[in-house]
């Protein structure tokens, strides 16, 4: 993998993470992240659209006059989302039953337009598609983490409902961290305020890790300077 692609991957998955650093697409992120399975579903659907729209926007980038690029990008994204919606409804109907409600939500996710504007309109097709894929996967990671956090705090379970994505065999994958018969529930985590609090914790965690890495790099640097001096 060349360094350009590695850089893009690092940006999408961590440094410029759509959910934790750019804070784009909060509307679907906060609304749908109440369980792991919901987060995973929305994340995968968004990844598909960001990758496709990145490629499509990059492919036509020389044809679009600068002053009308936004309406054209919106047109492309909206058309793509509808095509994905219709195709999944026709050819992947079981998956559509699960993800169907999330797909129209993707249009409300600014990350798609933001990457079209900031990246895909200035880069070749393959890099743009890769960027879309990585941005989508980065968002999926945040959605899964936030979903897991809220599911554990709110209901005491993990991976409930995965059978909706992976078939009936996945029914047994549920972990009950609190015994099911206790009927444990912590409403705050399940309702929208819990999504804000959870996301804030995740962002704080990322900032903490970044800060540690920076300190370590700084120490390393001074150390090598001292040695060479």
């Amino acid at each position: 993998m060349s360094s350009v692609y590695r850089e893009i991957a690092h940006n999408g998955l961590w440094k410029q993470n759509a959910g934790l650093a750019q804070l784009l697409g909060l509307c679907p992120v906060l609304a749908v992240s109440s369980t792991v399975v919901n987060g995973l579903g929305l994340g995968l659907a968004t990844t598909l659209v960001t990758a496709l729209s990145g490629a499509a926007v990059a492919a036509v980038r020389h044809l679009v006059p600068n002053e009308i690029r936004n309406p054209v990008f919106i047109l492309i994204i909206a058309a793509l989302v509808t095509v994905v919606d219709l195709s999944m409804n026709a050819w992947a109907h079981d998956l559509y039953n699960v993800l169907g409600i999330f797909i129209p939500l993707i249009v409300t996710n600014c990350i798609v337009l933001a990457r079209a504007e900031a990246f895909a309109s200035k880069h070749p097709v393959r890099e743009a598609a890769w960027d879309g894929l990585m941005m989508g996967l980065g968002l999926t990671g945040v959605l899964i983490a936030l979903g897991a956090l809220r599911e554990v705090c709110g209901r005491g379970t993990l991976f409930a409902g995965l059978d909706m994505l992976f078939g009936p065999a996945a029914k047994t994958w549920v972990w009950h961290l609190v015994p099911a018969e206790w009927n444990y529930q912590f409403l705050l985590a399940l309702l929208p305020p819990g999504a804000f609090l959870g996301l804030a914790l995740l962002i704080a965690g990322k900032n903490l890790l970044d800060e540690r890495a920076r300190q370590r790099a700084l120490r390393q640097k001074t150390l090598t300077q001292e040695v060479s001096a």
Partner: protein
Amino acid sequence: MKTALTQARRSALTLLAFAVVASAILASTYWLTRDTVLANEHAAKLALLQQVLPSDYDNQPLSDTVALSPVEAKRLGHDQSAVIHLARRQGQVVAYAFETIAPNGYSGKIRLLLGVDAQGQLLGVRVVSHKETPGLGDYIDLAKSDWAQQFTGQSWQGPAAAVGYWKVKKDGGAFDYMTGATISARAVTSCVGRAVAWLDEWKQKANR
């Protein structure tokens, strides 16, 4: 001035071209997927009907329907028209299936599908669509919990032939609910009660 105009015209034409291409792609996708989507929906509807009907009918309940009058459709919560599906064995009606809408869910309407046998006993209640809070009020959906199973076998007879019976236990009725999400259960329970009462009345009126 001239260049600005040319530029504007060029932009407008480009936008037009993109709109035409996008519309063409959408139209062809729609055209390509339409039949499959319709077939899927048909199969899904049939599968849903089969969940609330007995297995021993020999007709096509999906097309064997009776249209309801607007007044009766309204009593079931529908805006305009509604049908009731009939399952028959050797011409004899063995069960009814119909949709009803609870208008008072926590966040909007809850669509229910009911199956009722010829004696008026509920064969099953399924939530067709709802907007209840995920992870909270969505236990009314059989995909999330078997809460809705408690309606099976219930009917508008004896002590159950009263509005007060078709309530959650918290309100003095006979049906379970989950703490913290009473509103969804309340809406579904009273809606199911109204619907079975309505079916008894409709059968008498239609002399079935």
